[in-house]
């Protein structure tokens, strides 16, 4: 049984069908690329998996359990972590507090326990602080740990999002364009980091990315969306040589910068 199973998911916004019956699987410890031209429905698919949108049809199973109708805030607890395409950080908070906020689900303490700062709360806080420190180190955020996150450059903020998603120890990490705004060397480092994360955190990654060389390098498997439909999936090699995929990227209306990258 796959870790994530997406079955016939349809999402409509008024007249627009953003996702038109998509199915795919992500296995345990797999890095799965999800690619497609702009507007293909990749982010919408992410939002369905993480509960922000409810699919109009179809279902999503995680670890064998159907999660399509669970409340949004339950997803992290189950083991789904995510980053956002257009940064969704807590802007007034420091880098460290942003990362700690990601550890919310690892804690249990409520209002009263916190107000009195019972021993259990102090323990919880110390554990979270320790793990935040690890992730700040892993993502090279220690030097900026106590700076409000809004003051940092885009690339750094992306790393904060990744640290924030990782601190809850997800089993599946959804990354929406993590390479956005990075230069060549940074993309190389990111590829390295993704493999390392998969290995040391023992998780699966679903990766949405326009940077083709990155996707092809790190993915075990790639699914391709176009106009809300899955047009191909398979190994990076298979997908790259699929005539339908080539057509989607070269075809009318879509920018050809992606094709070149592929």
């Amino acid at each position, binding site marked *: 049984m796959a870790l994530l199973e997406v079955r016939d998911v349809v999402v409509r916004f008024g007249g627009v069908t953003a996702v038109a019956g998509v199915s795919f699987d992500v296995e345990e410890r797999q890095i799965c690329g999800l690619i497609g031209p702009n507007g293909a429905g990749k982010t919408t698919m992410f939002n369905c998996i993480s*509960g*922000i949108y409810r699919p109009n049809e179809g279902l999503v199973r995680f670890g064998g359990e159907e999660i399509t109708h669970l*409340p*949004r*805030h*339950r*997803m*992290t*607890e189950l083991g789904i972590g*995510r980053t*956002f395409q257009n940064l*969704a*950080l*807590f*802007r*007034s*908070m420091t880098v460290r*507090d942003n990362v*700690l*906020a*990601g*550890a*919310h*689900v690892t*804690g249990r*303490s*409520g*209002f009263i326990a*916190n*107000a*009195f*700062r019972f021993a259990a*709360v*102090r323990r*919880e*806080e*110390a554990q*979270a*602080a*320790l793990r935040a*420190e*690890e992730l700040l*180190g*892993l*993502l*090279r955020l220690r030097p900026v740990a106590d700076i409000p996150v809004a003051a940092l450059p885009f690339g750094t903020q992306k*790393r904060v999002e990744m640290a*924030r998603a990782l601190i*809850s*120890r997800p089993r599946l990490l959804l990354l929406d364009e993590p390479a956005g705004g990075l230069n060549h060397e*940074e993309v190389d*480092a*990111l590829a*390295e*980091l993704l493999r*390392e994360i998969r*290995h*040391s*955190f*023992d998780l699966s990654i679903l990766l949405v990315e326009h940077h083709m060389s990155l996707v092809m390098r790190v993915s075990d498997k790639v699914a391709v969306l176009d106009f809300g439909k899955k047009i191909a999936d398979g190994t990076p090699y298979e997908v790259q040589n699929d005539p339908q995929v080539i057509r989607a990227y070269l075809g009318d209306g879509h920018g050809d910068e992606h094709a070149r990258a592929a």
Partner: protein
Amino acid sequence: MSSATGLPEGVAAAPVPVAEAGTPAWQRLLLVAGGVILALAPLWLLESFHLFQLTMAVIMALAVLGLNIVTGYNGQISLGHGAFFAVGAYCTAILMSHFDWSFWWTLPVSAAVCATVGFGIGFPALRLAGHYLALTTFALAVAVPQLLKHKAVEDWTGGVQGLFLVKPDPPAFLPVTPDQWIYLVVVSIAAVLFFLTWNLIRGRIGRALMATRDHPTAAEAMGMDIASLKTKAFAVSALVTGIAGSLSAVAIEFVAPDSFTIFVSITLFVGMVAGGVASILGSLFGGLFVLFVPNIAESISKAAPGVIYGIILIGLLFVMPDGFAGLLRRLTARLRRGGTS
């Protein structure tokens, strides 16, 4: 982004020292001692009227703190916190004057009632974002004095006349006047609540409150139950402001509907902004501000104190756009930089 250490099992090998707070114990002790001395000094330095004013300022600071929890930290705009202040004051007044309860026993009741009312208001608040919530809470505060005067509850609330009560006597072993005693009581209760609120804010729940304010969608994606957080924030906020109301009832020894007009709510809001939104220490400044600045304004111009007050307020916000707390933050940052370079 190359991190050379291959984290075994995701656990970084480097043991990282995690200090609970950056300050060493002796410094914290010094800070607390300084605070206690600063809080007790007015007992000897001020005569009864000014001590009373200071008592009221501390009460307002506590009420502003309550508002700060829900509006400053959680981003739910309330223009009606005067309503909770009134509920707290009337709880204490009714129990003391009708049932001869001791003041101390009225506090938990007042806290419970205010928290319940706050929780109840937190629910519709979930569906009302931003300006609509501001208007709804405003309407609540407008309604309160009229509700208090209403025939149905007149027997309890004393109607327009209000209720009289008597300050608790100081314990026999303490050589203090009742005014000094009430000051001590107010300062102690406020200190405890400020401390508990500080604890609340600096931990898991505080981060969740602020995260919910900054980016609700991301907060939910981090596993935060926004509905639960927001309603509880409203309850805690109402509790703190309500206790301030209880304290005001015994400090003034009188409650009446006309002491709880919409103006109280606006004053609390002004105090929060002037002191510093989302700041614990700022709430203290806010309380001092709303109590003493109007007096200063009146001493400058008897004819148009409102104008002077307005000018002072605008002037201060011009100099300190993020309140006293923001100014303090910038000053300490500069001092630190100056100290190290």
